């Protein structure tokens, strides 16, 4: 198994092979299917954007590769998309970010059983060993990285509130890792609610937390969209100087705040939707240049601070 370690490395590999393959243009053509969830919040919006961008770029770079991109609002549609790709588009490989990995495992296994290359992105299937390549963000890592920051920023402990995402496994992985990370500290979690990675819910829940607790030292919003709602609630209540808040994902607007040295949003934790582009790049390399790319690629959730924020600023994303 090939264990590549960071995004930077993957990008390096990708670009070098891109050059190589342009030289050795092959006669054989390949079709790669790309299946991602419909943009239902900012992060999946970013996924769709980066997937589309990668497909456009690679179509130009490799004349012998063509792509089929499909977005699905739910597992039923996503499973149907896979069947269509096999039956009518005759794909050779599949890159998929399963909306609900447990529900999609059987469908993806069928693709694999049909002898196709399978790259799974972000969410682990319920049965190991199906995919050829697994590219993922580090969900427990996001929790741990955040917990480390909270520990360092609140050395003497403090009161915090947590706004979770939606009740699906990756949310649990993040929250469990975070809780484990702050376990033996003086940091006290006053309350936890689901904010569904959504601005309105973040705003609403933060307002109620502010009503409920007179003293909060910090907020973990887990997601940058939720964080936007939290910040608005703080501002309106006039309590923006009482506490700081941390989101997650690396949304453009938040990266800019971190870069400018905001006291309210001192850091962010990366969980970038462009991991889907990395996955498509690597899969393209497999077909275009017959590169050895199978295995597992975990993209670290890095702490973004004022100092390294510039690296995470992708100015043209809508995300």
């Amino acid at each position, binding site marked *: 198994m090939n264990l590549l370690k960071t995004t930077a490395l993957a990008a390096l590999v990708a670009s070098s092979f891109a050059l190589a393959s342009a030289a050795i243009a092959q006669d054989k053509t390949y079709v790669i299917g790309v299946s991602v969830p*419909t*943009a*239902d*919040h*900012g992060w*999946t*919006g*970013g996924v*769709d*954007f980066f997937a*589309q961008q990668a497909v456009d770029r690679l179509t130009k770079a490799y004349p012998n590769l063509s792509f089929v991109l499909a977005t699905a609002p739910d597992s039923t549609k996503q499973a149907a998309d896979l069947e269509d790709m096999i039956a009518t588009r005759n794909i050779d490989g599949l890159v998929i970010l399963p909306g609900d990995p447990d529900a999609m495992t059987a469908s993806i296994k069928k693709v694999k059983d049909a002898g196709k290359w399978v790259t799974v992105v972000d969410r682990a299937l319920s049965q190991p060993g199906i995919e050829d390549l697994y590219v993922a963000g580090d969900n427990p890592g996001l929790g741990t990285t955040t917990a480390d920051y909270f520990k360092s920023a609140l050395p003497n402990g403090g009161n915090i509130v947590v706004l*979770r995402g939606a*009740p699906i496994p990756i949310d649990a992985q993040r929250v469990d890792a975070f809780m484990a990370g702050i376990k033996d500290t003086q940091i006290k979690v006053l*309350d*936890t*609610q*689901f904010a569904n*990675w*959504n*601005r*309105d819910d973040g*705003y*609403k*829940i933060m*307002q*109620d*937390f502010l*009503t*409920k607790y007179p003293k909060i030292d910090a907020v973990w919003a887990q997601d940058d*969209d939720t964080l*936007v*709602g939290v910040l*608005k609630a703080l*501002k*309106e*209540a006039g309590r923006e100087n009482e506490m700081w808040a941390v989101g997650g994902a690396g*949304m453009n*607007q938040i990266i800019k705040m971190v870069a400018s040295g905001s006291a309210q949003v001192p850091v962010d934790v990366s969980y970038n939707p462009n991991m889907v582009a990395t996955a498509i790049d690597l899969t393209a390399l497999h077909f275009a240049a017959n590169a050895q790319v199978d295995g597992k690629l975990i993209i670290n959730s890095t702490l973004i601070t004022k100092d390294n924020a510039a690296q995470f600023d992708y100015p043209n*994303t*809508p*995300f």
Partner: protein
Amino acid sequence: MTTAVKESAPSAKSRRLQMNVLGPLIALLLLLILGSLLNGNFLTYGNMANIVARASFIGIIAIGATFVITSGGLDLSVGSMAAFIAGMMIIIINSAVPSLGTGWTVVALGIIAGLAIGALAGAANGLLVTAGRIEPFIVTLGSLGIFRALITFLANGGTLNLNFQAADTYSPLYSGNVFGIPAPIIVFAVVAIIAEVVMRRTTFGRHLSAIGSNEQVARYSAIKVDRVRLMTYVLQGFLVGMAAVLYVPKFGSANSSTAVLWELQAIAAVIIGGTMLRGGFGRIWGTVVGVIILELIGNILNLQSFISPYLNQAFQGAIIIVAVLLQRSRRTTN
């Protein structure tokens, strides 16, 4: 021959009538008591203002839905329409900033555009229902998808952000106060009062309950059924536009997750308030109470620490069902 119409009513009947009127108010009162028992900060002015201000978006939309539902129609597209209008407003304001600056002119342009787009979108729904003779459920289910896709497309899958200076100008419309009352609450109250009067005291209001009660009777009674129907959808669209006008300054942004499922919240509020889903009877103040009840439930769940957050939706669902169940048993006793 004797004239037998008496103005006095038997007491059993009047008691039933009072229950019918008081039902939603009693539910509201019970939730207020529950909330104040759970948390000392619940009854503070700040918390109450938060709740009503939050309720104002869906509230304004639900007032439009009360008109549509009373006339026997349905509009499922309101949530995605709100997101679409918010997106359009941001695009229009941003693109007008270079020529008009970032002052109130540009914001006023955005507001007018928002209201106009809302009315037009509503008219499109209404025309498909009336002239196109398609079931409102189907028409608005279709436009729900269309508007949601359009906002995703306009935002390129991500988030549309309002020009920063323009957002500063615009911001008081959401976060401002008049005599300590948040601006959205004032707009909500004004809309509610006007709507209540329109529903109760104008020919339009009377005509729509007639149509909802029995479309044939309305047609045979010289009512221009299609025109009234169309107007309810235009009005609904206009009010969705108004909700978007208040929403845009909240975050200065819109994306594909904006206003998701608002249509269901709005319909739930309308039904909790005592309006009949099959049409023929509607009351605006009931809808206002209904929407506040919905926000109260969310607020109380956040303020307590007994119920697991995993069960929040179950709790909300149960309260909605109980509220409607109370009405149902009231009707069958009649």
